[in-house]
């Protein structure tokens, strides 16, 4: 077989490129020749998780992390894409992907806690997440607040002791003694009081108890009342109270204006009230009417001409 040099060169180049791509992907964690499933998990914080960190199920290494990116929504959360090369174990869909520390040095990984569901995750699904504290994490998480509390406590004890010292040194010990004596007396008084009033106190407590009992028994009613009240306020709030009030306000303002006009004697009503011409006129008219009626009474024939039968009769 006699290949040309060009052909040999071409074969070498193409084979090497293929080999290089395969090898590079293999080292990066993709095996081009094995089937694998992809899954996703979203965490608020990558927390040192790296690409190619392992995925474990019950301690079995089943895959690795392929890529870690920020979630698209700019929330700062990270989405972890991982592939499982060992797909014998089907993952129930209520499983959780816990971020875990794998050793003392802090190497991270994802531990899948299998759920109990009978339906299984499909290629490309996203798992529920959580965090599993490593030993070091747990220690530091618990130690730090404790330490802060202790520091705080120690400083307040210190200041208290200082105050106390001051009180004790500044001749306060005598008054302190007096206070203690008074306190003792007060407590004995209280004791006496309690002894003498014991029955009454008992009575009070019993009453209080029955009140609370009643309250509890009527809890349903109370709830209903409260509900009604709430309902009412709600509907009040909902009704057009505001606009109504505004309208009323406006009407009143109009009314005030009108009354003012009336008061000042403008318009018909104003004239009616302020101007007595009409009254005078009416009065004169009434008097005239009066006179007319008297005249009519005295001389009805002047005004009434009955003609029941026959034709018209000249009055005179």
């Amino acid at each position, binding site marked *: 077989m006699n290949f040309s040099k060009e052909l040999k*060169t071409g074969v*070498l*180049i193409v084979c*090497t490129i293929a080999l290089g791509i395969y*090898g590079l992907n293999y*080292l990066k964690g993709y095996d081009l020749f094995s089937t694998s499933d992809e899954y996703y998990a979203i965490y608020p914080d990558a927390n040192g998780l790296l690409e*190619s960190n392992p995925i474990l199920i019950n301690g079995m*290494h089943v895959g690795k992390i392929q890529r870690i990116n920020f979630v698209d929504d700019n929330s700062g959360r990270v989405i972890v894409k991982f592939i499982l090369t060992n797909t014998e174990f089907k993952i129930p869909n209520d499983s959780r992907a816990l971020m875990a520390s794998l050793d003392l040095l802090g190497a991270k990984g994802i531990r899948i806690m299998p759920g109990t569901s009978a339906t299984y995750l499909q290629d490309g699904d996203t798992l529920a997440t959580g965090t599993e504290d490593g030993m070091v994490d747990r220690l530091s998480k618990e130690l730090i607040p404790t330490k802060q509390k202790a520091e705080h406590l120690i400083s307040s004890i210190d200041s208290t002791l200082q105050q106390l010292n001051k009180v004790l040194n500044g001749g306060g010990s005598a008054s302190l003694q007096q206070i203690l004596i008074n306190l003792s007396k007060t407590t004995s008084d209280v004791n006496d009081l309690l002894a003498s009033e014991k029955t009454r106190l008992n009575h009070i407590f019993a009453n209080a108890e029955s009140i609370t009992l009643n309250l509890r028994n009527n809890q349903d009613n109370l709830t209903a009342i409260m509900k009604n009240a709430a309902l009412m306020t709600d509907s009040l709030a909902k009704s057009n109270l505001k606009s109504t009030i505004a309208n009323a306000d406006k009407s009143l303002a109009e009314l005030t204006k009108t009354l003012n006009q009336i008061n000042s004697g403008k318009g018909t009503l104003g004239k009616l009230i302020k101007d007595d011409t009409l009254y005078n006129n009416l009065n004169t008219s009434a008097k005239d009417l009066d006179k007319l009626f008297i005249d009519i009474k005295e001389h009805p024939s002047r005004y009434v001409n009955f003609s029941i039968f026959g034709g018209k009769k000249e009055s005179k």
Partner: protein
Amino acid sequence: MSTISNYLYNIGKYGIFMKRVFSKPEKWGMYKRQFFIEVDSLAIGSLGIVAFISIFMGAVITLQSAFGFESPWIPLYAVGVASRDTIILELSPTIISLILAGKVGSSIASEMGTMRVTEQLDALEIMGVNSAAYMTLPKILACTIMFPFLITISMFLAILGGWIFGVLSGAVSSYEYIYGITHNFKVFNVYYSLIKSFIFAFLISSVSSFYGYYTKGGAVEVAQSSTKAVVYISVLILVFNYILTQLLLV
């Protein structure tokens, strides 16, 4: 003083030689034909030794790492990590380049030297051919283009060899080795070492051509210039290895 000026003289001469080498070819077709001849003899002809050395180098580095890491504090997959990084960063680009410097460098230098001594280069010049360019440019191109491919094959085979012999000898389990070689892998390391091998290939082909081209005398001088070429190339590879590491990795 004289040695320093001698070095400077040679560097200048090398620079002028390179200028001649990279002048416009008389006829691309002839250079292309020569290029494939060189690829065949320099790169494809070196495949066997590169493959052989890579596999055994990978095996030895894996066994040695496994031997050195026998501590309960260090996880066994560290063997894979250490083998992978040593192979990709240093063994494949640098050691294989040194071996190619011996093989390819001496072959180029002695071929060119013999052509000089038997007046074949003069014959080219008389014909009106730029002998420096015609003889050297195809070699430089063949080496710089093909050696990164050889180094890629070498990396692949060395890691494969580490796996085969590591597992066969029981030094490391297959799972741990594979976990190790894929653990925290940085792709840039591969690019870095391909850049290195490209520059080493240029050094090997150009420096050996340079020493061969300026051979004077007979068989003894041809032997001397090929020895000189290999020595200087090895020194230059190590110096440039340091410089490139400093520039690219630190």
